[in-house]
Every structure is written in C-alpha cells, then in structure tokens.
C-alpha cells in the first residue's frame, strides 16, 4: 500500500513535469520535459562524466562524515564519562548552530584548495558538532531508573557508561546521524561547486555555465537518488539494530 502511494505520487509529479515541459510555456532548453532529462542516463558521454565524478563526491562526503562521526562519538563519551558535559555543552551548542557552509572560506585558507582535504574538512565540520552535541544531550536524557539500578547491581561509573549509557545514547543518535548524512552530502556538493574542479558539484557548475539545463536536472536527479538510497540504507540498519528494543516503555 505504501509502495503504491509512493509510486502514484511520483507518477503524478513526473507526468506534470512532462506536461509543463511539453506544452511550451518555456523553451525546452530552459525547462526540458522529464523524458528528455531521464534520457540523459542513456547518453554514454554524460554517464561517463557522472561516473567519473560520483565516486569522488561519495569518497569526500563519506570520509568526512565517518571521521566527524567517530571523533564526535568518542569525544562525546569521554566528556560524559569525565562528567565534563556541563562545561563542554555550551561550546558545542555554539558550533552546532553555525551552518557548515559558513566555514568554507576559512577552510580554504586553512587547508587550501586540496581536492580531498578541503571537502573532507568541510564534511567534518558539518558532522562533528551535531554528533558531539547529540551524544552529550542524549546521555543526559537517559532513563534515570536504568542508571540507578545498574549502580545497585554492582556496576561502577565506567561500566554504567559502557553498558547502559552508550547503547541508549547511540540509539538516540541515529536520527541525528541520518539528518547529518544529508547535510554532509549537500555541503560537499557546495564545496565542489565553489572551490574544486571535480565532483558532482563541479559538474553541476559546468553544466550551468553552458546553460545545459537538461544535464543540470539529470545531475540533480542523480544526487537526490543517491541520497535517498543512503537514507534508506541508514533506515534499514536502524530498524535492523533496534526493531525489538526500541519503543516507549508501556509500563
């Protein structure tokens, strides 16, 4: 039923797109119909350009995201374990609310226009503050009863952190991870557009310079398709890990 509804909404959306593109309100080079855009994916030259750049973008975003997540999680738990949250959280909050793209000019100065270090650093600045903030916040909202019972059952501070706080905090972090994955993807594309000469972001910029709307739209479609796949993958993993023990306590 859910699949049917999704399929129906997509069919309606793409049909409307096709209709508006065909009736001639705008010239097709400004607003190409859906069939023309989707046709790009059978164009060997376009496919080669996309496949050359998609890997670069994925590696840059993935690497920055992974480093940011690992550093954020580890540091977050260290601060929780050392009871430093109250000191660190205000600083983490300041960094958390700064848009990642605001760091790009500074990062260009600090790490240069390196095709790997710059986008990875941008992805890191996008991921690290929210993950750190998320770990510290979720650790503070853990059911007090569970922590207290763990103490009375003989667990010391570090055992409670490892066995009780960490699993629950990581679970609560999953929605943030999903949101941040999307943000990292967007930030990497922006970095590639403004500062690099490779990657899907750069490809988009190149097509816009020659007013190739058909390929701009097909690249946007590819970008969103990749992101949807990544989000679905995270969703699947989340359900797989937590399907049984997630949920509100009923008693």
């Amino acid at each position, binding site marked *: 039923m859910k699949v049917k509804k999704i399929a129906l909404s997509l069919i309606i959306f793409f049909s409307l797109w096709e209709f508006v593109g065909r009736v001639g309100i705008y010239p097709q080079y400004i607003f190409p119909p859906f069939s023309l855009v989707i046709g790009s994916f059978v164009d060997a030259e376009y496919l080669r350009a996309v496949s050359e750049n998609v890997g670069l973008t994925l590696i840059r975003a993935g690497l920055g995201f992974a480093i940011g997540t690992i550093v954020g999680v580890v540091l977050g738990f260290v601060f929780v374990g050392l009871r430093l949250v109250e000191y660190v959280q205000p600083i983490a909050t300041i960094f958390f609310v700064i848009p990642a793209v605001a760091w790009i000019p500074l990062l260009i100065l600090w790490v240069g226009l390196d095709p790997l270090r710059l986008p990875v650093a941008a992805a890191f600045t996008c991921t690290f503050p929210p993950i750190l903030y998320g770990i510290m916040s979720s650790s503070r909202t853990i*059911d007090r*009863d*569970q922590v*207290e*019972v*763990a*103490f*009375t*059952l*003989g*667990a*010391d501070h570090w*055992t409670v952190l490892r*066995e*009780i706080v960490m*699993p*629950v905090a990581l*679970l609560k972090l999953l929605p943030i991870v999903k949101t941040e994955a999307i943000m990292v993807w967007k930030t990497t594309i922006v970095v590639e557009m403004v500062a690099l000469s490779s990657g899907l972001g750069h490809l988009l910029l190149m097509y816009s310079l020659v007013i190739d709307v058909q390929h701009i739209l097909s690249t946007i479609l590819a970008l969103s398709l990749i992101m949807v796949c990544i989000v679905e993958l995270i969703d699947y993993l989340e359900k797989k890990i937590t399907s*049984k*023990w*997630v*949920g*509100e*306590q*009923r*008693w």
Partner: protein
Amino acid sequence: MRVLLKNIRNYILRDITAEFSQGELSTIVGPNGAGKTTLLKVVAGLVPYEGQVYFDGKNMDDVPPHKRNVLYIPQKTGLFQHMKVRDNIAFCLKVRKVDEGLINERVRWALQKLSIVHLSERYPSQLSGGEAKRVAIARALVCGGDPLLLDELESSLDAGLRVSLSEEMLRIAKELSLTLIMVTHDLDWAMGRADKIFFLWEGRMLYSGPPEDLDPSIIESKALAWLGSVLEVNEVRINEEDCYAVIEGQRVPLYPCTETRSEVRKVYVPPNNAWVDVHGKIRGRVVGKVKLNDIERVLINTGNGVIIARNTYLTLTTGENVRIRISGAVPLKNRPVY
C-alpha cells in the same frame, strides 16, 4: 540484615530515624512527594544525604551504591531496554565477572523462581506490566544482596495482580530471609500485611511501628485524615460463612478474609470507608475537623478509638455528638502483648 537510619536529612527528608529489621516486612507509606522513594534511595546510596546509614551496625555512608549490595527495584522497573530478559537478569553477575557456568545456573534459578522461563529471550518492550515487574524482581534476586528495596511494586498493575505479586514477593523475601522495605500506595495491603509501617508526611516520619499500635494522638489531623484510622473491635467473626467485625453494634465487613485472622482485636479503616451518617450505629464526639482534597474529614472519638470520617452534608462543630457508618475494614495482625 538490620538497616538503621539515623537523623537522615536532605533536600526532602527532615531528620528521619528508622530501623528496618531482618525478616520483617516494612512498608513506607505517605502521599506523593512525602519522600518515600528518596528514603529508599538513601538506603541504596543513590541520593546525597546527611546523617548515618548502618547495615548490621556497619556504617555505609562512604560506601558507593555499587558496593552497598542492596537489591533495588524502582517503580518503573528500570529494565535495560536494549538487553533481553536473560541479559537483564545476568547483568549483575556479569559485572562481577562471575564464571559463565554459574551465571547460567543462577539465571535459570531466578527465571524459575519467578515463573518467567518463557520470557528469557524477549526484550523489555515485549513484556506486559506484570511480566516486567517479575523480570525486575528476578534481576534483583539473582545478585544475592540484602535489603530488598521495592518502590511501588503495584504501580501500573491491576488490583488482582498487585495483591498476588506483593504476596509472592513477601513469600520469596521470607524464604530468602531478606529485609524487605516496600514503598506502597496500597494502604489496605500495607496496613494488613506489614510488620511495621513508616508513615512519611512532607519529609517527616510521623509514625513508625506496627500498624495496630498506631496512636492517632501523635499524628497531626491532616496526615491522619490521609492515613485512616485503627479501631478496636468488640467482636470478630471470621469463618466460611461470615467475615465481619462488630464495632459498637455495627457489623463491619472485613477484607481480606482469612482464617489466620480469627483472633483479630483491631482493624484498619481506610480514610474513605467511614462517613458521617445520621442513621449510622457507631456513636462518637467530634474532636477535630480538617479538609483534605476539598472534602471535610471529621475526627471522631468513639469508644473504640479515634476514627476519621468523611462529612459531606452536615455542619459540625467540635464537641458535637455524631453517628457514623463504616463500609469495610482491614483486620490487623494480632501480636502477643508482653
């Protein structure tokens, strides 16, 4: 284990001294916010306090909660949501690095003791309220500590289940010779079953001792209106056909009705079970009035003790003679008088 609290003070409790004895059922009663849970947490070392806590004469004030070896079951069970029932129960043994074979043996023992073997592979979110309570009890028992601290075992359970689980808990505690300290809102059960009650009111201990020895003169009126009254009975009949006590000529139904209570001399009358009624058989004189939850409660001195009765329609003054009616009472244990 004998647990002694001396002059305990903190953000809620005000100079509490109490003694909980081994093999006895001690129930802590009082309205919400009185400090019942906080008192349990003081014993477990989970909240800061001033004063002294002794376990069998040994001072525990500097002993952290993970080394006090108490068995604590919070109101909402505190089951670890990310662990299966089996792993929840095995938790305390694993953190103590007990041998794997012994862990399996102890977990099996606890599962069988609480009749929850069939739940061992489930997660807490897949359990009913009653099942979760049983798992929490099993998890505590498997550690082999003492005292056993139970916070509102009856919460989110229906009436039948709460009594049967409380009774089962009592049986297990006696069998294992545990000092059982229970916080409860079930006044009927607490007064009828406890060896000692500890009545907390706004952080103060207003009464501690056997329920039948409750002296209304030492408790302030408002608190007494919340707690209810203990009355002497003139006659008791408990057998297969009858189950009642006679108080000044009125037959008062007793609950629960058990043969073992045939020598009942006193009963507990819950605060809502007595009311002023011009046609009532029990006579008395008004000695005080107090409002609780917008309902007037009248303290009436009868020949059998002071009773708290609801008054919804008469204008009464102190010293006035009134009649009351009692809808039911809980028989209290009959202890030998030395």
